């Protein structure tokens, strides 16, 4: 289906992950005063990078929580058009239970975003080609913020973008290809499990989603938009569409215990005489991930790493590995994206179509002190497992306070992010298992500390798996289209007129 995305109105983060801008810094802020919130937005607005052709040395994006939108004066009747999860946030007890944010991941222990932490209004994402450019942009922003009553709740620095995440594995290989973006026109036909084009409405509001429908989003009567800043509802209701060209942005600070991960893999694979078995250690870690450290998928090369397959994403599971003998049923990548393994007809396009409704556009960046973390090794570490090996051997001390600033973009928080988190990653009975959560990222609270590795003739069970990843912060944001940002910017002038009629949602 041909679709035309309004690339000048969509924030560029939806279209690209900025591999050419390897340095990033995320500022989470709260404004004490609506006037300052507006002053900040007015300053940011001309600096926001749209999704069209890009060749700059830096990029800037801004996203708001429900509280931040309220602060800008968006009336409650319009906010009611956002999804329930966005409005109620990530940290209520029901959400925490659902997302596995319990025990050590409890929001009460978070560094930011938790119920005992300062409120979060918004998020500024800054990307740059070099550290110098990043520093210049940061200084610009800081000097502007200094003049306003804006509190920087936390500033999240990231490591230079490499190929590997902190456990030492090549990451970010499988991404949905968004219909309507230039990349989609050259992509493989929709039937393949890997490079599958997913309807734009799964990641950009105001376009048809995987069900061929427009996801609920805030619409308001035209009277609420007297300056005609907003696009119209494409469904033809005539309403002004505040959601169009925007999406939800999930941010989670996920701390990775690299030492515990490799120690566990080492202990669990010791030879009978107690000596280390480095090959078995890496193989077990790869079984947990579903890819080798180079990124090579286990379904393609089950027995040894093959850096030539490091970017391979063109595979399914059902035809080649229905029982998980190569890539365990519970492996991380098989849970994050089960591809063609889903009922009712695994191995068919129908199965892939069900999968399409649960994809995440990932935009996370690693963080840490910069010493010993694989991402710090930079692109040099790409395409081989050298760093993972060094981490595993203990040649490189794993840094404390290392992890991922997980970011994903979705049109539906519940059907995409929360579903994947609950029903796939943290579900002990995923894919017919009994007591296995995601071996890499799963919560082990009460249940899920088993990792089952199918094998012939008999599976191997690893019991009492420690928890390797803890949530340290998080919030749900809305990444508005640029017209919507303009609308929010001028809100005080028209807030009164928008607040009177109730919003329409569709």
């Amino acid at each position, binding site marked *: 289906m041909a679709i035309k995305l309004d690339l000048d109105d969509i924030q560029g983060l939806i279209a690209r992950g900025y591999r050419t801008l390897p340095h990033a810094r995320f500022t989470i802020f709260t404004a004490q005063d609506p006037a300052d919130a507006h002053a900040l937005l007015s300053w940011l607005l001309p600096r926001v990078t749209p999704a069209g052709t890009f060749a700059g040395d830096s990029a800037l994006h801004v996203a708001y929580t429900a509280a931040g939108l309220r602060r800008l004066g968006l009336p409650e009747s319009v906010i009611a058009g956002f999804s329930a999860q966005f409005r109620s946030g990530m940290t209520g007890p029901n959400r925490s239970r659902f997302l596995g944010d319990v025990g050590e991941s409890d929001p009460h222990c978070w560094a930011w975003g938790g119920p005992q932490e300062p409120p979060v209004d918004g998020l500024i994402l800054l990307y740059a080609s070099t550290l110098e450019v990043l520093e210049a942009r940061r200084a610009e922003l800081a000097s502007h913020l200094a003049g306003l009553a804006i509190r920087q709740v936390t500033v999240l620095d990231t490591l230079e973008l490499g190929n590997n995440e902190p456990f030492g594995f090549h990451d970010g290989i499988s991404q949905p290809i968004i219909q309507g973006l230039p990349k989609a026109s050259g992509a493989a036909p929709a039937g393949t499990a890997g490079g599958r084009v997913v309807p734009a409405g799964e990641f950009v509001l105001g376009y048809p989603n995987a069900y061929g429908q427009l996801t609920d989003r805030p619409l308001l009567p035209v009277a609420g938009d007297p300056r005609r800043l907003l696009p119209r509802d494409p469904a033809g209701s005539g309403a002004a569409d505040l959601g169009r060209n925007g999406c939800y942005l999930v941010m989670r600070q996920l701390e990775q215990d690299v030492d515990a991960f490799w120690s566990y893999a080492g202990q669990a694979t010791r030879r009978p005489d107690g000596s280390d078995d480095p090959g078995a250690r890496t193989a077990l870690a790869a079984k947990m991930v579903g890819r080798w450290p180079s990124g090579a998928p286990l379904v393609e090369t089950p027995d040894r790493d093959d850096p030539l397959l490091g970017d391979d994403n063109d595979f399914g599971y059902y035809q080649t590995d229905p029982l998980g003998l190569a890539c365990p049923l519970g492996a991380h990548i098989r849970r994050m994206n089960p591809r063609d393994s889903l009922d009712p007809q695994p191995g068919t396009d129908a199965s892939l179509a069900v999968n399409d409704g649960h994809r995440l556009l990932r935009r996370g960046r690693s963080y840490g002190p910069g010493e010993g973390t694989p991402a710090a090794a930079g692109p040099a570490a790409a395409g081989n497992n050298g760093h993972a090996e060094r981490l595993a051997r203990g040649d490189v001390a794993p840094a404390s306070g290392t992890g991922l600033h997980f970011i994903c973009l979705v049109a539906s928080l519940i059907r995409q992010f929360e*579903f994947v988190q609950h029903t796939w990653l943290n579900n002990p009975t995923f894919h017919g298992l009994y007591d296995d959560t995601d071996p890499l990222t799963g919560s082990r609270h009460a249940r899920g500390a088993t990792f089952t590795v199918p094998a012939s003739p008999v599976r191997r069970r690893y019991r009492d798996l420690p928890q390797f990843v803890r949530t340290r912060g998080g919030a749900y944001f809305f990444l508005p289209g640029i017209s919507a940002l303009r609308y929010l910017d001028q809100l005080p002038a028209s807030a009164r007129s928008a607040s009177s009629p109730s919003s329409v949602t569709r």
Partner: protein
Amino acid sequence: MPHQLGITIRAPVAAGRVADLRDWLEQIARKGLAEGLFDFTHLRGLHFAKFYLLDETADLDGQRIPATLVFMSEVDAPLRRHLAELIDLAGEGIDQAFGHCTGYPGPGAQRRSRIAWLRRHMIPARAFYVNTVGRGLEQIRQEARLRDALEDYLDQGDWADHTAIAIRRELRTYVAGCPSLAWARKPPPTPSLRFRAGEAVHMVAVPLVLTLLLPVLLLVLPAWAMLLRLDERHDQPFTERPTLRHLEEVGNYEDSATQNPFAVAGFVRPGRLRQLTFRAVLFLTDYGVRHIFNHDSLAGIKTIHFARWVPLDGWRRMTFASNYDGAVEAYNDDFINLIWWGLNATFSNGMDYPPTRWLFLGGAKLEEQFKNTIRCHQVAVPAWYTAYPELSADNIENNAQIRAGLRGDMSPAQAERWLSLL
């Protein structure tokens, strides 16, 4: 092994007691039904149970319907034993629960009169889905223990040099040597001959009668379809969204076990056409779940343990309740992707359902309208019991296959396949 029953007991809440009942349910929600007052763990054959409150409301003609307390259990036959145990073993809890209702004899009354009261307040389900008919609680528990024992046994050995046939032989020897697993070497017992005969007669009789009526049906059906289509043209999109407060209230009692309880309630659309259609569809649903979808899957959905459709208040209202694996979002996605046609045929006869075409099309396929109407009509289930909180329906079926694989001879490929169940 007995067949399973879906018991529904419903009674009006006594005047002025609704707030008390709400508080009491809140307390019970914290304590649970497994131990203490209810001690449901010790009720024989009890798979699931739930209490929920249907608030006072007015029907479509404005007639008042008082608040009612609903109790549901999914239990192995016989009924008589279950009702007796509700009083004999869970009597303290049952007395407190229905003590909020009009006319309950109370703890001082004789056992017999309390059982009779429960029986009098039972209402029938018009369709009752059982994931696998005849698989009783004892079998589910035994087979879970069998699987645990075999898994532990496998964990202790080094099997790398063994063939699948040899490993299977060893596992069979192990089971044969365990007196506590002696039952596993035999197939599970089947439901009573009487039950099976009744089902067989029903299975044949319904198509037979429908065939005899075919000449009439062929005349009536086209007219009915046209009338229905005309009626559907008045359908309006469902634009309401659940409030955060409602989502919170319902969500407070969700996602604490492998399964979740589910209950919705809503009004049936007025007029003879819809009443008749609704009854006809439920009649066919009943046939479908008894004779077609009676093992492991409801038309492709493998996550539902039990489900029932219960008309209320003289067919003016309906409640649908189930026990399913996973989260409500996944449950709804399964509905939309797998049995949208069945959902549409049933629930489009209710108010507030997204517009359908020719009864089966549209409806649930309008994803967010469908999810919103489900969430808006969902009723909180504060008090819920599950006998096997850690087992998915998939696990239970897998356990049954493990047991079945202990019997008979197998080829090496079959043995390998069987070992992959472990």
